């Protein structure tokens, strides 16, 4: 086939395929480089970066649930400086053509703004994912993502300084996600990524205490896929922003299901832990899957779905 049926273009990101590892599930990229050639990926969504280094939450930080997992990593990262001088350059040298999405988090608006202003300076960072929905930190994070006004202010402030397009990552832990989506759209966001994790808890029957040291964690994996699809279709019908969808994707069929809900590209998180080769496997399975369901290309599918929503 002359034409690449998997390619997709969204603000800042001209991707050869829509598959990218989700933020926090793939480190700063190089960790998985011994398993496959990262050039196969559409992009990589890097681990959250904050202005200063963070250690994150006490351990245990992960536990398992039916068809899902809880994590309370707490945004551990080496801070903007190290990310800019070491992490992104390492990828840029080894994979100069691979676009990276930087994930930005912070405790205060000033933090976010400073990181957003600088992080686009890395030549391979083509977009920012503004993480206003991390459920695992006391300050910032989800706080900004559950209040439409704060979400608006933060997005606007970050947009005014960022040198690359901004995708705002929405939290599912809200009564009305459309309200938040519209606020960040009004504030100038270039796109959305959704969903971040739901909040969950598991207890140990032996200790009678929560398994996670942080008590609560973020629920991810196939367990949340129907919730992700619900929120994506709801937002896709009400805003014009392109959506990078995520939440439980394990197969090429799942990718298409996210397109049917209105996503323009997708990220794969938890599944990397189940199978480190999951991303290339999905990418390789997609063409046959498109054939099977009679889909010409992902861009055509996206357009068809958007058209359908308009007339619904």
């Amino acid at each position, binding site marked *: 086939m002359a034409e690449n049926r998997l390619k997709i273009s969204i603000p800042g990101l001209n991707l050869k395929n829509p598959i990218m590892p989700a933020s926090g599930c793939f480190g700063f990229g190089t960790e998985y480089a011994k398993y496959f050639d990262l050039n196969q990926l559409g992009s990589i969504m890097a*681990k959250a970066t904050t202005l200063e280094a963070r*250690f994150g939450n006490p351990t245990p930080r*992960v536990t398992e649930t039916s068809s899902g997992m809880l994590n309370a990593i707490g945004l551990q990262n080496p801070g903007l400086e190290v990310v800019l001088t070491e992490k992104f350059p390492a990828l840029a040298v080894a994979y100069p053509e691979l676009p990276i999405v930087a994930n930005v988090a912070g405790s205060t608006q000033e933090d976010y703004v400073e990181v957003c202003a600088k992080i686009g300076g890395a030549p391979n960072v083509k977009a920012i994912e503004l993480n206003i929905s991390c459920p695992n930190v006391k300050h910032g994070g989800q706080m900004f993502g559950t209040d439409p006004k704060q979400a608006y202010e933060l997005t606007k402030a970050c947009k005014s300084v960022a040198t690359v397009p901004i995708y705002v990552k929405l939290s599912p832990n809200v009564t009305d996600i459309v309200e938040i989506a519209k606020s960040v759209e009004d504030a100038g966001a270039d796109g959305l990524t959704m969903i971040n994790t739901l909040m969950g808890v598991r207890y140990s029957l032996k200790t009678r205490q929560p398994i996670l040291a942080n008590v609560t964690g973020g629920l991810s994996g196939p367990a949340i896929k129907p919730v992700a699809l619900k929120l994506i279709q709801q937002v896709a019908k009400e805003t014009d922003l392109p959506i990078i969808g995520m939440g439980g994707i394990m197969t090429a069929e799942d990718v298409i299901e996210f397109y049917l809900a209105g996503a323009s590209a997708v990220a794969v998180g938890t599944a990397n832990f189940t199978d480190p080769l999951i991303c290339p496997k999905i990418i390789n399975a997609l063409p046959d899957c498109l054939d099977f369901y009679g889909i010409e290309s992902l861009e055509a599918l996206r357009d068809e779905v958007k058209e359908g929503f308009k007339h619904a």
Partner: protein
Amino acid sequence: MTLIEQKNLAPQIFEMTLYGKLVKEMEVPGQFLHLRVPSAELLLRRPISLAEIDQTTETCKLIYRVEGKGTDIFSKMKDGDQIDVMGPLGNGFDIGNVKAEETAFIIGGGIGAPPMYELSKELISKGVKVIQLLGFATKNVIFYEEKFKKLGVTRIATDDGTYGMHGHVGHLIDQAIEEFGQPDLVYACGSNGLLKAVDRKFDDHPKAYISMEARMACAVGACYACVVHVKDDETGMSYVKVCDDGPIFETGKLVI
């Protein structure tokens, strides 16, 4: 890899023999495999240490205790079943510069004993004199006693006194120091309590190592699930990852 034998060693304790090309890459004792549970509902792999590696037959053995859903499913797998294996992972025990005639304390507690078996074997092949100090909860969960005894001195303690010395491994260590003097090498794997004791006892021993456990997701250093604080770090920012900086660390370095 292919499961070729499953043995019930003791109540809830099983030994799995796996066959496959991957064995070629298993060179260092103390490394672990990250096993996918064959159940669609369970997404996280299970880290299990290599207990024995046999290059000639391309097999390796894992010993595991049934703790929860995943190990329970492992215990019901049958000969010929395929098992999805990542690894070998982790740094393993550093035995590059051990010398013949050195004395090594090989300390294993309960389900921490398995990796010590392959370690002992490899140390012996390098001429090291091994003193194996093993602790178990009670008599009927002891496993591999004969196999360890074939390798060298083996002392056993049980928490409830039903076999060997009454008490925990700490006592065995004290006794062994009295009997054999300070060891040139120390290697330990077991419960957090055991590791703490070893860490304290051999705080500034130049060649003492402990194998750490942590809840893991990726096991390749990408998710930051398995971090441990480094001792005496004022910033609070220093850490190691058990999955790829470890699971083996020098004593005296970490906040256990």
